[in-house]
């Protein structure tokens, strides 16, 4: 392994090293603040190592490849992990009943798995990354092992993710049987031309496996229960980092295998996109639990992303990149508000918890409203430019049915976002269900402020970000 390759691998080395260091440290002495500092520091160092890493595409063994594409998505994932780590600090501090330090080990490992996914050019590394990510997520979901809901959610995720991994693996095996290689590009080259039944089944099973992880309809049933049961930081993590990493992998896999130009896959994915958009938005309509609502809305957003994904080309990939960034910032923002409002007993995930929020925390209410408006795609926010980009990609590729579905279903989505915004600004007769005087940790405040700045920056003057993403996805080929 050359020095360049080690430089390219540094983010992973740092993350895994930090996880081991925390584990060893915990054997000596437990200190929550210190653990958080190590986790955040290592995530920041990993981001820095990405920024200072090789500028040319570097293959690292046949398994991984660091290029503009993986740098962008890894950066996004690491930054999101960093925000979750910062927000977790205050959250676990309030939950004194649980030993909190191990959470960060899991978080760092999950981040390492996600980064692996963004770099994967080989089915082995794809599966490895996915399992590292999922394995950590099981534990993160069931982290509050005294709470029945959390354990139930963990088991649910374990069973379903395990099942979907099996399907995925079987699909890979079929592709391997046909091509004799696990390298994505090499396999794609051998498959070029007509696909026979065996490989068709193989690729389809891989897509089903990915669809499970992204909670695309009709494989979306687990999402709401898992989000609801999981602690808020884990739910935030699953909604942002995990989905972002898998989507990045899907984009790279599709670029290698040219999935979008294959009629049967195109039709199937288009159908899945339409169903996903409508299922997510319609199921979210009647939710009065914010976590369940976010679970369904995140399903819908994955459906939106599929539109740009199917549009393919540079425009489509840029749209995917930008929308994922906007989605991650926004979703983190909503979860951040939820996390700082969550008390010692339970998460602030009920509609009642937000009634009159503007009275008790006017700024927090404004952030909450802004983030939801961004999810709805309204101007001044990142979501506006993101949705605009998705539609542009869809129209540019003449995907009229998908674009129409996006328009109609996202109009539906306004209804439930507005419900929570209206609640936040309502003037309640009774005092709010949660104690008004939640002391907000300074770090969480800073994190929220940064998220708001990012939200507005991407919403008002996104030229630089778009240019960066354009470059990143161009190298991704």
């Amino acid at each position, binding site marked *: 392994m050359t020095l360049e390759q080690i430089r390219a691998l540094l983010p992973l080395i740092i993350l895994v090293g930090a996880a081991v260091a925390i584990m060893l440290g915990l054997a000596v002495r437990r200190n929550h603040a210190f653990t958080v500092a190590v986790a955040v520091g290592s995530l920041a160092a990993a981001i820095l190592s990405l920024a200072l890493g090789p500028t040319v595409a570097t293959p690292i063994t046949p398994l991984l490849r660091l290029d503009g594409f993986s740098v962008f998505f890894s950066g996004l994932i690491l930054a999101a992990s960093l925000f979750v780590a910062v927000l977790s600090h205050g959250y676990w501090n309030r939950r004194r009943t649980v030993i909190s330090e191990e959470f960060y080990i899991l978080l760092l490992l999950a981040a390492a798995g996600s980064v692996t996914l963004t770099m994967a050019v080989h089915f082995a590394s794809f599966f490895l990354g996915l399992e590292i990510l999922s394995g950590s997520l099981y534990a993160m979901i069931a982290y509050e092992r005294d709470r029945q809901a959390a354990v139930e959610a963990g088991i649910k995720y374990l069973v379903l993710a395990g099942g979907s991994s099996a399907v995925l693996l079987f699909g890979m095996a079929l592709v391997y049987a046909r091509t004799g290689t696990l390298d994505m590009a090499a396999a794609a080259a051998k498959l070029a031309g007509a696909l026979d039944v065996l490989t068709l089944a193989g690729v389809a099973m891989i897509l089903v496996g990915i669809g499970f992880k992204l909670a695309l309809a009709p494989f979306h049933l687990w999402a709401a229960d898992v989000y609801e049961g999981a602690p808020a930081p884990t739910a935030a993590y699953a909604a942002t980092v995990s989905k972002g990493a898998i989507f990045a992998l899907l984009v790279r896999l599709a670029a290698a295998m040219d999935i979008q130009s294959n009629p049967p896959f195109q039709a199937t994915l288009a159908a899945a996109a339409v169903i996903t958009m409508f299922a997510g938005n319609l199921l979210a309509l009647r939710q009065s639990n914010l976590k369940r609502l976010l679970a369904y809305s995140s399903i819908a957003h994955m459906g939106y992303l599929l539109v740009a994904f199917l549009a393919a080309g540079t425009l489509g990939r840029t749209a995917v990149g930008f929308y994922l960034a906007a989605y991650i910032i926004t979703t983190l923002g909503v979860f951040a508000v939820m996390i700082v409002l969550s008390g010692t007993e339970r998460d602030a995930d009920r509609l009642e918890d937000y009634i009159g929020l503007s*009275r008790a925390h*006017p700024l927090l209410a404004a952030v909450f409203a802004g983030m939801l*408006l961004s999810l709805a795609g*309204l*101007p*001044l926010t990142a979501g*506006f*430019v993101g949705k*605009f980009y998705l*539609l*542009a990609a869809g*129209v*540019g590729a003449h995907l009229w049915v998908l*674009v*129409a579905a996006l*328009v*109609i279903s*996202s*109009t539906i989505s*306004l*209804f439930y976002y*507005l419900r929570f915004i*209206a609640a936040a*600004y309502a*003037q309640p007769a009774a005092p709010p269900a949660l104690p008004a005087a939640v002391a907000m940790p300074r770090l969480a405040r800073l994190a929220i402020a940064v998220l708001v700045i990012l939200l507005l920056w991407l919403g008002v*003057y*996104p*030229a630089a970000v*778009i*240019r960066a993403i*354009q470059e990143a996805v161009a190298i991704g080929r």
Partner: protein
Amino acid sequence: MPVSRRGATAVRALALAAMAVELVLAVGAWIYYGRLGAVGAPGAWLVELNWPWIAPLGIRLHLAMDGLSLLMVLLTAFLGLSSVVVSWREITQRVGHFHLHLMLVLAGVVGVFLAVDLFAFYFFWELMLIPMYFLIDLWGHEDRHRAAVKFFLFTQFGGLAMLLGILALYFAHASQTGQYSFDLADLARTNLAPAAAMLMMLGFFLGFAVKLPAFGLHPWLPAAHTQAPTAGSVILAGLLLKTGAYGLLRFAVPLFPEAARQFAPVAMALGVAGILYGAVLAFAQSDLKRLVAYTSISHLGFVLLGVYSFNVLALQGAVMQMLCHGLSTGALFIIAGLLQDRLGTREMGRMGGLWAVAPKMGAAAMVFAMASLGLPGLGNFIGEFLVLLGAFKVNVALTAVATAGLVAATIYSLWLIQRVFFGPSAEPPAMEDLRPHESLVLLAMVAVLLWLGLFPQAVLETSRAAMEYVAGTQVTATAEIPQLSTPGARIKGATPKFMEWTPTLSESTGEILQLRMLGVRIEGATPKFMESIPTKSESTGEILQLGVPRARIEGATPKFMESTPTKSESTEEIPQLSALKAGIEGAPRESRELTPRSEEGSRFRLQLTSGTRLMSFDGCLPVPLSAPWRGRFDHVSRPEFPDVPVARTAGVRPVCGLARPEFPDVPVVCELARPEFPDVMALAVPKGGRR
């Protein structure tokens, strides 16, 4: 957050000051440009600002003002100021928050009236929604939540439909020219298949018709207007509805002239349906605000009728109607709000006999009711009269039916006054008459309405050029677009003479130059000019398009034109072309050799998309073509020559400059080619000379 009384007053004063400054600026601009004699029309803006915004997508922050925008901004400033004043006493809860949303919605409205980049327009368009939603939802009346959500869902859906239209147009334009731009002037030049243009036009129409609201898309309006706080109703009726009408005038019609003309009967019928429906339903209301809301549907029906009549008379009437409806209906909402504030009800059944206790308010209401019914002497009369006059020329039957709306308006207006201010009182009325600040606002509105009614000329003068532009896009392309076939014609002197030198048909067998003119300005010469258009069969030669705005013809052009080579020379040496150092990919060999004798070392690359009409350029001299497209051409295909792209210019700016060595101050623009002659570029000489 509770705001202290002093803090609340400070907030109100700040908002008042902001709107006062806005009004002073708008009036100042009006007087200033009026004195300059500038008319202001698309392509010849009074003032504009064009900044890069999201360059990778070709989005620019392009704001521009013509007569129409100016009037709309004036209305915005005036009604904005009024709504701050009328909220002074009404809003006591969360005063700072209220004014934040009020100012935001006004900012969005002003942005809508000024943006000529379609992304920027859509941005402002959506920006208006959120604060308006909050104004209704937080400070509205009893059924406000439902009304606010209804408003939001309807307008958001319309907005997204419009966005699809914008994006489709954006990509159609990009695929033809390779230029990614959202600029109105660029997009207006797109050649569209009729079916595609119709679909895109419908997308735009849907967005605007929801806001207007056209009949059938109106269900959000009565609820929203009734439930909103007074200032919200004033802004909704006075401004937000106008953004729909403005959008039709600025975008839906000029961008898709043929499609809009085809669609006109439907739109006019919708307008008339709205006129009657609104009037009849207004009559059936017992809720005062609801009644006024339905009259809005009726009055905006006139606007729709006027816009789609496609003549300057009706268009001018539509603009007048927009302004006067904003004032008179805004005022009626203010009065309704004052009554509700004092009586705690909007039910007309519980009012009556109020003239006795509030004669000032009664008198004011009387004036606005008269305005609403179209009494001569008040502005609304001018608007409705002009619309009907213009529409009569186009469609007698619909106009006749629409006139019935005036009768209905008389009935509901008088009925309103009768029930509220006269008639038996259900309860002994005891209420305060107008307070001084309220009188002031209403008096100002009366004054403006009277002024508009008696001296409408100032306003009509301001909007004329812009409306002529809108109407002009409807004139058949043949009548408006001068084409000149000059196989080596030597042109001496200025415009009129220029025309006379048009060769006869028999001569124009060779290369044909098409000259683009500022269509409107050379009306006198046009007919003759048109005679020389070659028939299709004869125009087999290479066709060059040359855009020459008038300014150049009078100045440098004669000299420029004189040197146009004669036919025999021109195969190889069209001077404009030979200035290109062309490296044309995929083109015939000859075209690759269009290398200039001078200008060595300069580079020009042309990408051909074979089979398509237009080509994209990667670079040009001396300004790279990747530099933002700043042209302002309007392309219209002529029906008889579907394969000859023709252009109508409204003021030309350099796209990419290309100087001829002999005339370094005359940049040339390379622009278009016909698919059969991929090696021939169209040329245009920009107005401004050197870039």
